[in-house]
């Protein structure tokens, strides 16, 4: 039983590392900030999920496993919304208009 769990750990963590590598390759090779953001949030989040899955058999059950899952869910939530936030910020905003010393900014 523990051999099967160790095998699960090795397979899942290795897959997770591969996804991290894919994410970094995307970061290095993609031409544009928005595409790089995409590579970062999607591939790296999946890599983290696989790593967490692989570590679940190695921590004490149930509290340790629950905490690890909570970490991944939080990273997913944060990554998804922050990805939108970063994307909205990266898209070039219209020129800032300075009217009598007051700067008007559009949606960030």
């Amino acid at each position, binding site marked *: 039983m523990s051999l099967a769990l160790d095998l699960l750990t090795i397979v899942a963590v290795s897959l997770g590392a591969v996804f991290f590598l894919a994410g970094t390759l995307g970061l290095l090779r993609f031409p544009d900030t928005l595409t790089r953001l995409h590579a970062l949030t999607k591939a790296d989040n999946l890599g983290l999920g696989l790593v967490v899955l692989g570590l679940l058999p190695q921590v004490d059950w149930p509290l340790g496993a629950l905490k690890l899952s909570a970490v991944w869910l939080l990273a997913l*939530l*944060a990554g998804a919304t922050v990805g*939108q936030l970063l994307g909205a910020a990266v898209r070039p905003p219209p020129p800032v208009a300075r009217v009598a010393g007051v700067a008007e900014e559009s949606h*960030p």
Partner: protein
Amino acid sequence: MSLALVGDLSLALLILGLAVWTIGARGAYGAVVGFVAYGLLVALVWVRLAAVDVALTEAALGSGLMGLLLLRAAARLPHDPAPPAAGRAGRLALRVLVGLACAALAAGLAAVVLLLPEPAPSLAAAAGAALPATGLGNPVAGVLLAYRAIDTLLEAVVLVLALIGLWSLAADDAWGGRPGALRIGQPGPALVLLAQLLPPLGILVGIHLAWTGANHPGGAFQGAAVLAAMWAIVMVAGLSPPPRVDRRAVRLVLVVGAALFFAIGIGGVWWADAFLAYPADWAKPLILAIEAALTLSLAAALGLLLAGPPAVDPDPVAAGRAGVRS
């Protein structure tokens, strides 16, 4: 050359490279990003040294909250054109001097660490031996709240003093108003969504960190930093305006931690023969009470430090309405 050693060396090289890049970065914004990344990586180093409490503090205060403060400071710096060529030799000499001083300091620290006798002198055994009397399971909490409680009390006071110093930067006609540094023009829908989803989880994590500090890595400062960060996100997104700083409730919350700590310390003079000594059976409940009050005060103080000095309200009517501005 074991794998752990290779890993440690890689981490150290990465951090050093990042530090050098941060110092040499062209724009202030890039330098702050590098600094925050550096802080998060140093937290990993602390984990390798099995000092998770320090890692928590480094990640929360050293890089997270400091990053926001540094960005704001960088934004207020004048963007001056290239400095005049006149004093260039003097500036270069100053930089070389600073570089030499930093190198000397680093060499001195390295010498101190490398020349320690084996085994290194340490009070860890004595601290661990006296821990059961406090009822705590985390020796760091024991040091912070029992052996060196005076330091923690003074830190809480210093934070309030720093806040007063920050408030004193307000313009005369803004005194007592709402802090204005976290006001942004138009928070987008993504930011509002983040501010609605993240803070409830963050508050849970913050309270958990503060509570679990008694027996596991954690503590009042770390929990308070997470709570303050969540409050700052809410303030930036415009979901809830920063409170007016002349409100009595705000000021009460800020001082309750240090005041309770001080009161318990004074009580120790009667019941345990020394200032900040705890009576034998009451140590743990008193420490937990101090931690709770301290977390509340520190979270308020850190959040208000992030919110900046009071500023004149550009739209007093809208600020009175707590609602989504979009």
